[in-house]
């Protein structure tokens, strides 16, 4: 059984370091990278949602939204199947901000759905906290490994 932890990844060529399919642990760096990118994306989503809420009474304002989950999912799936590290690369983890030009909730052309935005705010905060907690527990495992399992 070969464990491949904390291997320095080579980002110079497209596919990253090639590990065998499901070849043990992919390393804390990989996990950390993905958690970091997810936190960034959630933070961006919060910013965009804050902008939508701030403009809830601006005539003609059209809301934007951030999407990254399906792209991240596809990249993770790809990595899982072929042992690559696509998900840690910016090009393989596109975070997209799209403006919904056709949304219209009121006669003044404002397209912000306040209920939906508030749900997004709550969901984003909870997801952010969940990911941050994952990161903390990842460091906990790393610490345990460093101390050879002792407290």
């Amino acid at each position, binding site marked *: 059984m070969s464990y491949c932890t904390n291997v320095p990844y080579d980002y110079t060529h497209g596919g990253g370091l090639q590990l065998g399919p499901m070849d043990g642990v992919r390393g804390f760096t990989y996990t950390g990278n993905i958690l970091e990118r997810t*936190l*960034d994306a*959630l*933070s*961006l989503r*919060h*910013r*965009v*949602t*804050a*902008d*939508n*809420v*701030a*403009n*809830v*009474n*601006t*005539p003609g*304002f059209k809301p*934007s939204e951030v999407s990254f989950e399906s792209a991240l999912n596809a990249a993770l799936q790809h990595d899982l199947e072929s042992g690559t590290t696509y998900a840690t690369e910016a090009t393989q983890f*596109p*975070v*997209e*901000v799209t403006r919904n030009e056709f949304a219209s909730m009121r006669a003044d052309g404002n397209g912000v759905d*306040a209920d939906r*935005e*508030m749900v997004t*705010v*709550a969901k*984003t*905060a909870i997801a*952010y*906290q969940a990911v*941050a*907690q994952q*990161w*903390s527990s990842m*460091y*906990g495992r790393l*610490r345990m490994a460093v101390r050879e399992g002792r407290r």
Partner: protein
Amino acid sequence: MPLFQGMDISATGLLAERVRMDVIAGNIANAESTRSGQGGPYQRLMAVLTAEQAPSTTTASNPNGAGVRVTAIVGDPTPFPTVYNPSHPDADANGYVRMPNVNPVTEMVDLITASRAYEANVTVINAAKQMALRALDIGKA
């Protein structure tokens, strides 16, 4: 990703809604004022909100939405309603008084809209605060 950018955006929302509430307060206070600085009755004021754009160009990961700003406070051009009240000091020759074009019901509805929007921005700030505090916990034992 700057940590406090979301909070700054929400702060612009708080400021804009508070200016709206101030303007509404002025309108309600002057709902019966038949004299004003411009001569004639008090003219209802409205705050104009404009979506703020950051100077940078929009890219996929860097949207340029930067909140909201009150760009102008303009007078409502609706004609002044007249009320028959010959004993009023501002009544014209026929006994009619021009009243402000303030409708208290409209003002109350606007006030509720502004105050709910203010609350929504506060909720967003609280969420940002929770996120930032949790981010500080990363790496703690």
